[in-house]
């Protein structure tokens, strides 16, 4: 079927079957490879994208469910050369090792901060527990999320 995906502010008219998985449409058809395959069962969060501002596991999302909605992938988070505060915080805290989980981590954190701008440590852990960092960078990721929460939101209207 013909279907329109709105990804990072850009419209894509695609001919796809409605049950195709969003993760693979993004990766294989639109070459937006920032969302990663980690498990295909919604357990690791590497495939996280934002749909209308909510963190969603794109490996468990049929493309038809995302049609017409505002999809944000890691490639669409920065404004030109200006990193999103969460991206900046991950760089500053060096909250990554191999980096494979990083896009999903960042997008989950963006969604968290969007509805809980000043999260406690417990809130961060509870919200982020569905994202796995096999390199074990958890402490620094928590630090980065806290750090991002201190940045002025006016500097970067998330718009996601």
């Amino acid at each position, binding site marked *: 079927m013909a279907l329109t995906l709105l990804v990072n502010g850009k419209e894509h008219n695609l001919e796809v*079957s409605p049950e*195709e998985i969003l993760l*693979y449409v993004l*990766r*294989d058809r639109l*070459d*937006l*490879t*920032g*969302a*990663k*395959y*980690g*498990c*295909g*069962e919604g*357990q*690791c969060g*590497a495939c996280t994208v934002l749909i209308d501002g909510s963190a969603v596991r794109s490996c468990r999302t049929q493309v038809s469910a995302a049609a017409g909605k505002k999809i944000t*992938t*890691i*490639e669409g*988070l*920065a404004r030109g050369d200006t*990193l999103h505060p969460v*991206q900046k915080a*991950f*760089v500053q805290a*060096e909250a*990554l*090792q*191999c*980096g*494979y*989980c*990083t*896009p999903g981590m*960042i997008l989950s954190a963006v969604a968290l901060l969007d509805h809980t701008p000043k999260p406690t440590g417990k809130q*961060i*852990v*509870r919200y*982020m*527990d*569905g*994202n*796995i*960092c*096999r*390199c*074990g*960078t*958890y*402490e*620094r*990721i*928590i630090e980065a999320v806290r750090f991002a929460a201190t940045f002025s939101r006016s500097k970067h209207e998330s718009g996601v």
Partner: protein
Amino acid sequence: MKAASDPELQQHQRILRLHRFDLGRRDFFKVLGGGLVVCVASGRLAAQESGDGGRRQVSETLDSWLHIGETGQVTVFTGKVEVGQNIRTSLAQQVSEELRVPVSTITMVMGDTDLTPYDMGTFGSRSTPQMGTQLRKVAASARAVLTQMAAERWHTDEANLLAAEGTIRDPKSRRVISYADLTRGQKLTKVVFNDPPETSADKWKVAGTSTPKKNAQDFVTGAHKYVSDLSVPGMLFGKVVRPNAFHANLASCDGSQAEKMPGVTVVRDGDFVGVAAEDRGTAERAAAAVRAQWNAPAQPSESELFDYLKTHEQKEKDPDDEIIKGSVEEARVWAAKTLQQTYTVAYIAHVPLEPRAAVAEWKGSKLTVWTGTQRPFGVRSELAQAFHISEDDIRVIMPDTGSAYGGKHTGEAAVEAARLAKTAGKPVKLTWTREEEFTWAYFRPAGVIEVRSGVKDGTLAFWEFDNYNSGPSGMSTPYEVANQRVAFHPSDAPLRQGSYRSLAAAANHFARESHMDELAHELKMDPLEFRMKNLKDERLRAVFQAAADKFGWAKAKNSPSQGFGIAGGIEKGGRVATVAEVSISRGEVKVVRVVEAFDCGAVVNPQGLRNQIAGAVVQGLGGALFEAIHFENGRILNPHLAEYRVPRFSDAPQIDVVLVDRKDQPSMGAGETPLVGIAPAVANAIFNASGIRLRSMPLLARGLPSKAT
């Protein structure tokens, strides 16, 4: 064959740096433009020089090289690979230090068999002690060459000149010339054979500092392309039809339904069956449509694992697998107290978040493969053997990968993608599913460790340590004991097993440091005091003390449900001590806090090192507490993340790292050793809290038992 359980060790032992290559084949100047190439060779010949643009054949063993371009850009070539351990940055720091250029001007070309020097692989914590040393040498040599070039230009003595910030300076005449100006218009290759003077760690300005991760921005924006993200024009998607059990033979195969699908190629070669199609969905449907019948032999199951390992000892032994000192038999007679216990470790999986992936492309008889591996040159050999072609016709490229932890020494996906691409006549990308990664990769060896010990007056009288199958790494005890017998017994293992971060050192430290704790308890001695009484190694004593001080080892427990445990050891040249605090509530064990003191010699990048240590603690906790592969008759029973628990945010304790920076000691690798103390420290803390002694990893496979065993 020796120790099939320990390929890493085997690889350590076959360091065949006989690779002779032809420098001209790698035409740096064509790729990178003019400038200066400096190579360090391990031969004993006098320095050679060629000014003919690298066309000359230099058939010597070259260990490493770098190129200084006409703009001053420095490109360093190393066969090591980046899997998250941060060597892209820490190695660049060491080049920066010796070459006297900013880190930002350095590009690291890593793990590309056509561009980089031969390298055995990135494992065994050898990148820092060996590659770091080599790159410092090549950078110091390049600085010497540039100084000499400036001296010739200015008709002065090299001794009058100094190098700083990408320039050579003559302080007396105040002349300055940049490396770019010195090398402009040149196509100069210098091969250096002697050892240049290196900067000692106490004078480091760039090395030893927390230089930010080189390409961090690429990871936070999604710009970095992992192998699974790559595509090449005309590329197909591959899918392998897997057997229903290990060691299965293909009895029959009907691919006719799959072949009817548009654009699908079905490949059958021996026991290999796979498909290639224009998109992922078609490849999956085609693979599902192949009707394959497999015959699998009966195979051992998890329920009999530990008996099996003990009764299937391999006949061939390596003399290095046994350490004998003094006489255990005599000491057994005079020891005041003896203790005998058995410890076990389960099979566990590496679970790199990026499963195995490869893109393979044939152009005529030449093959290029992009794949995530710790051994690009090893994968090249695998491909050469698989396709009966020369290694010269194969290029393996490894982009920074979604980690490995010792789990990507091999090239399965590379061989499979290349096989599919060969028949399909187009490039093929193959990405393993999580289930494939859990099933068809290899595992950290399971093992049984038997310890018999004796003490007198708080001192070890004898020590017997028999490790079945899990491997010899870290099996020798750092404690003073005159009478000992320590042995590794390789077994015919029921599952495919191989390297893993810290390898057997995690198992051996678990057994040894748990047993030391049991002895201390028998003697009614403080566990730290008992260790110190039996320990002379000054550096290990220092990290034990540092960890205990930071933790507040002497402090009283707040509540009976709280427990403290300590463990430590020497591994891969580093010294580590770990103190864990657990709290137990209604049978639930929570690791609350971990203090880890680590001495790996002179620290190259403190920020990166802390990341490695915290990561090792978290990864070690998974194997310590709950990770285990369950298997039955040649099948993996829990090949999904829903069934195989890895540590998450909620499992991560507070981690306090104490870096014991020994600038007087050579820098050692740090990816592995920080992992070895966590399991015994936690087991000892659980005993301290509950009186329950757990001797099997994972400790909480079935939760906390209700009574002491």
